[in-house]
Structures are given as structure tokens and as C-alpha cells.
């Protein structure tokens, strides 16, 4: 530990500011509040602050950030890799350091986010122990009021001096290079710092009535608690303030920003929040978390349960910003968890702290936000609303997808949308997308001509396990556009027919003219090694139909299969799953013999933006293909 006088500390900060190779930010006053901002002189620093309006995450994950630029003539390119100036942030409280350490994990899991990690790597954190605790702060309860890692230097106010704890080699060098009159701390100073830290630990007025470790367990007992969430969210304004000011929230939206030439532009990401009404809404208009209580609950579960199970930490550091920014005053986690605890006690629920989850956070690769250019080589209209696109990557590479995976398709100036691949990987030179005209992107895609360009990212997600299914009897059940992803596996199976057992395809749509891949499917009727049964919900008088009439489930009793050896692959609109699964269960198909593919708002495709989450799972990363036995207990899934 080192000691520096406050005067010399200010000189130290001023010499950092003078160095043009550094960005120096620190806590300053803003109205009657505080905020991190660019420092012009050390005199602006307010290290006695209670809490800042926004956490320092804005330096690494800014409110608005360009991911990709584009030019219709040249395609997409990564953001200009202008040299990132290292940012020195002066005055970060321990809870905000704890939050950054959590965010490091979320942004590096499986695929690391290059924009976050580059800025983070070059940064220097000068922390300060809390001198004034905000009245909403409960950091001591979360174990985040003091911290022993995650900083380069940590200051403790000792009256006219600061004690400096050196946290990294980078911190020591900074002090060496820019500071003067730094002395070694004597035993009394070290004692004093220890005493200050103990005082901080007992300063919070906000306290849990139970052990913090119980939070994940408390939540898992309260998911469907009668009226609990409705009661607590009754006055929720769905304004998103609680999540936007949160130091551990990392959900984002991606937007296209064409310039006025209409030929160039950028794609940016902006902060988003799961409390906002349209967060889980997809292009068809379906909203998977439609009510305020649904979304309010999701926030607590994400913080206290889902991220705990995935990363081993409760994603709350006790800064209290959510609670002080909530006008109806319903966002205070201490109040909510205390209510939950007392309710559970009254109900006689037994609670034990959860065992440490098994954590295995790896970084496999970097996220590439830059789409590859590709050309539409063929367009085949299938119905009034669906078109089959055949696409070839311009760099000559093959997509190399697994059946069931999806790609993110970009259209210049419009944006990006997830679309499942309809062709089998056995077809190598090109791949196919069957696209329904639905939102802006798909409508625009339909208007593009053969020879025009699109952008492709991916393939993404967890597809069908073609190896595992070998030797099994397969019962394909497709509803409407569900045939599109299902066809990638179905055609793969037909191309490797000898490896699979009996193959049956049940396919239903509303009326005959909505039938997709008509000719291809009719050809199946001639094959002895495939049983094909189509159905329509109804047939208008002016159309001809000789097959079954009735919803898809009416076909299930018409086919013979052995539930022990059969795997059912079910893809269709959300409403279809419940009914098809119930009828398969009637035929004794075991849960783990049912494989489904889910549709959500998969915005980033890499398990970060949060839009496609169904409870703890990311559809883009853990799905879209799921084994029913693994998700049947997940309330938001079906």
C-alpha cells in the first residue's frame, strides 16, 4: 500500500490529463447528482460522491455504438479500427468494479465481443472506496461494497491523504510514471484503511432479512407464485429505467442507420431493456413476454437465477440505481426479495442455499458482426407470400450449416433478420431460404432481383443432431412455414436415406394454395421409402384437394409408428406445439423422442442481446432446435 497527499494526487490526475495518449474520465457533479465524464482538470473530481447516474460500463458498452458500416457498392465492413485511446477512469466504486468483472464474463462467454473487450483491455481503473453511501445502496449485502480485484489502483480517503492499493502491474507503472511524492504506507495507515472498509460494510440501511445466497432458491420457488408478480408490477410504467441504469445489464438492440445518399450507412447497437413492451416481440406481431408482470419477473429471474446458473454469480452488485430511478418505487430488489422471503416463510416453504452451479465459461471465438456478401442466384415464388431464395456466398465459401440452423440475412439499408436455412447441407454450392413476406426486411427481400446482393452472417444455433438420429425411425411433423427449417433435415435424410429407419412426413397448412414445396412433396408420393401425408385446415370451393382435411393433429392417428424407435421432429407456429405434443404423448412417444425448433426474436445470433431468451435459454445459441424433454419444464418455451 502507498500513500499520496491529496495535493499530489490532483497533480497526478492533471499529469494524466495532459498526456494526449490517454482519455481521462472521472466522477463529476451533474446538477445535484454525479456522473462519469471527461475530466478537464483534477479539480472537477468529486470522489466523495454517493452514486453516479450511469455506471462506468458506458465506456466499454456505449449507449450507441457502430458495429458495421456498409456501402452498397462494396458491401459491409467492420467499424474503422481507429486506435482506441486507453481510458483511465478515476473514482470507480467497488460495486461498479464488481459489475465490470461480471460484464467481462457475459461478453466473453462462448463468443467474445470484440468491441467490448478491446476497449476494456486498454482501460485503466482507478477505484475509490465509498465515502458516502447512497440511501438505496445495498452493496454490502451483495458482497460488493469493497473489492480486492478488478482495479489497477484503489484509493481510500484518509483525510488529507489517499491510501493507494496497487491492483495491477499497469497501476504500479501509472503511479511510477505520473505521480510524485508517493510513500509507502505505515502499519497505522494500513490499519486505518481496514477500519474504513469495515465501516463501509456496515453502513447500508437496506438489508435482506435472509442470507443473500438464498436468492436463486427463493426465485425458483416463486416463479408462478399466485398474484405475487402481478401485485408487485401493478404500477410498473414499463419505462425501462431500472434496467437502463443497471451496471450489469447488457441487452441491446441493433438498428440500421442509412445516410441520406441511401447508398451508405451504418449498423449500430443501442442499449435495450427487457422491461420494454416490444422487447420480445417478433415480426409476425407475436409478443412472447406481453405483460408488465411477465417482464418485471424476467428481470429478477435473469439477475438472480438465470445468470447465477450460467455464471455462478447473482447479477446484482447492490448499487441501488434501479431503486432510486423507479418513480413508482417498485424496483428495489431488497424490498422485493424480502417480500418474497416472508411470503415463502408464511407458506412454510423450506429453503436451502443452492449448491454452486457447475460453471464452464469458455471463449471459443470472436463475434463477427460483419456480414459476408452473397448473391441471390434464384428466386422461386412458392405462394402469394412465400418465396424460395437460392443464395451463393460471394467469397466462394460454402455455408457449412447443420440442418436446423439459421442465418442472419442483411438487406442494405433495411437491417438484419434471422431466417432458417431450408436446404440440406448436402447441397453445397448454394443454400436456400424460404421467406414469408412479414416485416420490413422480408418484404424488401422479396423485392430484390436475381443477381442482387444480400449480407449473410452465420450459420448460428444448435441444429438437428443428424448423427444421433441415424438408425432411428423419423416422424416429421410440419405446420405452415415450419416446413422451411424442417426441410433442411428432411432433405438431408433423403440424401442419406440408407442411414435412417422409416421416414414419415406429416405436413399441414391452412388451405391448398398455401402449401409450400408442392412439386417436391408430390414427388414423395411415388417413393416407397417415404410416407407422406399432407392436410389442410379447410379447402375453399374453388380449389381442388384430395388429401386429408383437418388440423395437423388429425394426421397423427392415421400413421403407424413404434414410439420406442421413433423420433418426432416437430416444427410449426407456436400454437401448434402443445397440441401436436399432446397427441404424440397419447401415442406413447417419450418426451426425449420429441425434437422441436422454436422461433424468437434472434437479433444478434450470438447469445448476447437478450431478445430471444426463453427463461434461462437463448434460442439463438442453445436452440433453435431443442429436445422436448429439456424444455418441457421451461414456462416461456411453449
Amino acid at each position, binding site marked *: 500500500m502507498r500513500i499520496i497527499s491529496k495535493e499530489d494526487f490532483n497533480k497526478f490526475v492533471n499529469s494524466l490529463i495532459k498526456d494526449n495518449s490517454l482519455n481521462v474520465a472521472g466522477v463529476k457533479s*451533474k*446538477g*445535484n*447528482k454525479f*456522473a462519469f465524464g471527461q475530466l478537464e482538470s483534477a479539480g472537477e473530481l468529486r470522489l466523495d460522491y454517493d452514486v453516479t*447516474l*450511469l455506471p462506468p460500463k*458506458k465506456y466499454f458498452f456505449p*449507449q*450507441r455504438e457502430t458495429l458495421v458500416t456498409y456501402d452498397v457498392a462494396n458491401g459491409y465492413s467492420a467499424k474503422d479500427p481507429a486506435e482506441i485511446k486507453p481510458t483511465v477512469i478515476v473514482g470507480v466504486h467497488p460495486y461498479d468494479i464488481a459489475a465490470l468483472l461480471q460484464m467481462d464474463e457475459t461478453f466473453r462467454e462462448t463468443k467474445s465481443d470484440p468491441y467490448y473487450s478491446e476497449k476494456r483491455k486498454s482501460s485503466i481503473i482507478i477505484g475509490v472506496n465509498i465515502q458516502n453511501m447512497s440511501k438505496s445502496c445495498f452493496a454490502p449485502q451483495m458482497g460488493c461494497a469493497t473489492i480486492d480485484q478488478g482495479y489497477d489502483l484503489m484509493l481510500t480517503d484518509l483525510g488529507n491523504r489517499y491510501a493507494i492499493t496497487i491492483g495491477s502491474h499497469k497501476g504500479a507503472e501509472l503511479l511510477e510514471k505520473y505521480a510524485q511524492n508517493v510513500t509507502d504506507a505505515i502499519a497505522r495507515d494500513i490499519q486505518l484503511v481496514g477500519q474504513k472498509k469495515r465501516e463501509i460494510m456496515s453502513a447500508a440501511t437496506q438489508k435482506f432479512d435472509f442470507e443473500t445466497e438464498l436468492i436463486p432458491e427463493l426465485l425458483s420457488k416463486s416463479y408462478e407464485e399466485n398474484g405475487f408478480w402481478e401485485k408487485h408490477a*401493478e*404500477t*410498473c*410504467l*414499463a*419505462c*425501462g*429505467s431500472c434496467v*437502463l*441504469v443497471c451496471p450489469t445489464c447488457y441487452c441491446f438492440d441493433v*438498428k440500421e442507420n*442509412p445516410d*441520406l*445518399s*441511401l447508398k451508405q450507412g451504418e449498423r449500430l447497437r*443501442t*442499449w435495450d*431493456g427487457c422491461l*420494454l*413492451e*416490444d422487447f420480445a416481440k417478433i415480426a409476425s406481431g407475436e409478443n412472447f413476454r406481453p405483460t*408488465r408482470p411477465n417482464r418485471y419477473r424476467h428481470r429478477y429471474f435473469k439477475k438472480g437465477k438465470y445468470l447465477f446458473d450460467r455464471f455462478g454469480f447473482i447479477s446484482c452488485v447492490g448499487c441501488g440505481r434501479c431503486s432510486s*430511478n423507479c*418513480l*413508482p418505487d417498485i424496483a428495489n430488489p431488497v424490498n422485493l426479495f424480502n417480500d418474497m422471503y416472508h411470503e415463502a416463510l408464511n407458506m412454510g416453504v423450506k429453503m436451502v442455499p443452492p449448491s454452486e452451479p457447475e460453471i464452464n465459461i469458455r471463449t471459443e471465438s470472436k463475434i463477427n458482426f460483419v456480414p459476408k456478401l452473397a448473391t441471390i442466384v434464384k428466386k422461386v415464388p412458392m405462394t402469394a407470400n412465400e418465396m424460395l431464395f437460392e443464395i451463393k456466398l460471394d467469397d466462394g465459401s460454402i455455408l457449412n450449416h447443420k440442418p436446423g440452423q439459421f442465418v442472419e440475412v442483411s438487406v442494405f*439499408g*433495411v*437491417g438484419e433478420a434471422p431466417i432458417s436455412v431450408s436446404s440440406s447441407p448436402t447441397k453445397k454450392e448454394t443454400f436456400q431460404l424460404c421467406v414469408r413476406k412479414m*416485416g*420490413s*426486411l422480408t*418484404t*424488401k427481400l422479396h*423485392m430484390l432481383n436475381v443477381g442482387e446482393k444480400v449480407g449473410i452472417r452465420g450459420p448460428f444455433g444448435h441444429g438437428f443432431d443428424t448423427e444421433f438420429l441415424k438408425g432411428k425411425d423419423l416422424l416429421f411433423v410440419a405446420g405452415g412455414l415450419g416446413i422451411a427449417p424442417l426441410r433442411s433435415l428432411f432433405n438431408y435424410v433423403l440424401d442419406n436415406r440408407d442411414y435412417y429407419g422409416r421416414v414419415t412426413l406429416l405436413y399441414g397448412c391452412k388451405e391448398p394454395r398455401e402449401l409450400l414445396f408442392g412439386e417436391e412433396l408430390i414427388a414423395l408420393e411415388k417413393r416407397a421409402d417415404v410416407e407422406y401425408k399432407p392436410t389442410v385446415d379447410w379447402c375453399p370451393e374453388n380449389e381442388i384437394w384430395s388429401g386429408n382435411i383437418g388440423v395437423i393433429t388429425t394426421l397423427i392417428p392415421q400413421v403407424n409408428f413404434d414410439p420406442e424407435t421413433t423420433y418426432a421432429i416437430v416444427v410449426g407456429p407456436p400454437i401448434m406445439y402443445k397440441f401436436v405434443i399432446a397427441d404424440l404423448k397419447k401415442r406413447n412417444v417419450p418426451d426425449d423422442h420429441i425434437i422441436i425448433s422454436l422461433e424468437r426474436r434472434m437479433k444478434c445470433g450470438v447469445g448476447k442481446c437478450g431478445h430471444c431468451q426463453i427463461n434461462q435459454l437463448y434460442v439463438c445459441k442453445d436452440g433453435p432446435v431443442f429436445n422436448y424433454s429439456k424444455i418441457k419444464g421451461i414456462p416461456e418455451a411453449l
Partner: protein
Amino acid sequence: MKPKVAFFDFAGCEGDQLQIANLEEEILTLLGHVEVVSFREVMKEHSDNYDIAFVEGSCTRLQDEERLKQIRKNAKIVVAIGSCATIGGINSLKNHKDLVNVRQTVYGNKANLFDTYAARPIDAVIPVDAYVHGCPMTKEEFLHVVKSLLLGKKPEIPNYPVCVECKKNENVCAFERGQFCVGTVTRAGCNSCCVNEGTICWGCRGLVDNPNENSQKEVLIKYGLTVDDTINKFKLYFGWQEMKK
């Protein structure tokens, strides 16, 4: 072929068209993409042959409806610009008063020469394809909507409240400054411009799709606003939207 565009005004201050006239540099680039065939504020020519109609102002008389319907018939795309056209705007304040008195106050002894009825946004009369909210609308959002239409996509207009932008801009909450704000229920898209300047959100962009108005009224009262003033705050811009519910 460049799409032909025309501008029309109904009951309003023409402040939104002024924003377009004030575009300066961008207007030249914009004129590379569209042909303006009618714009009373800046040109004297007029044609009824247009693809996109931008309509400012609210509909306040039965006669206005005929004109609106004709515009709808002529145009492929109708865009409402400014609060009066998108949500009824402050003209809707008169809807809470006796219309006979309103006419007398405005026109005095000539009142019987002038017709009036409850002010309403233009989508209460004709289908509208796109909205540029705001009082006045901002140039940025106007350009955003125009670019979207030219690129053949539905303009993305936020369905979250101004608080989202306020938080991103790291403003001190108006309530923390002792002021009363309706940004909690007002549709964002303005980049919280008023609060950025140290004032409050008055609600000029109208309510979000599914606002929790009761909770917001409770908040205003909890922070010390009288019940009457709270009701007035909601009347200022939300009058038509509230009445429609």
C-alpha cells in the same frame, strides 16, 4: 422515376413544414431523391399528381374530411407530420370545452360563419401509413422517416417512453429537480430533447401503445402535483388519445 411528393396543411401552425424548409444542406440531397410537386410554404406551383402526401395539422371541421379523403385517393403513401396530425395535438384542448363558446371566443360575432367540431388526428379520418411525431417534429426524425420510405421499409418509431432516451443521455430526472414530467408514458424518438435542455417532457409525441396512465398519475400526485394539474398535464397533448379509450 423519382417519387412525387406534396405537402398539405390543416389546423396547425405550419411549424412542421417550416422544419422541412429549414433543412438547409440536406434538402438538396433530398431533392435528388424526390420531386416536390406541391408545397405552399415554399413554392407557388401545385399538382394533384403525387405519390407521397405529407399532411400537417389536425382535422377540425367536417369540410376538412373531404379534402383529406381526396388526398388519400391521390397518394400512394400518406404521412402525418407533427403532433396535430399524428395525435390531434394541442388543438384537442378545445374538445374539453363547449364548442359554441369556443367559436364565439375565436370568431366573435362572426362565429356562425365558421364551422367546427372536435379536433382529431388525421388517422381518425383516413388511413395513415407513417407518422412523424413531435411539436414540432424534428428534422432528424423527418429524414429518418423519409429515408425509410425511400428504401421501401416501414419507418421504425419507438414504442417505449422518453425515459429510455433520458436515461441513455444521463439526464437528472425532472422529478429529482422538483419538476413534473410525462416522459414516462410518452412515445420516445425525440432523443429526450426537452429534458436534455433542463425542462420536462410535455408529451408532444403522444402516448406509447400501452401506457400505465394510472400509475403515472399516481406518481405525479405523490410528487406533489394537484389532481387538477395532473389532469391538465394529460390533457395538453393526450386529449384525443385519452378520449378515444
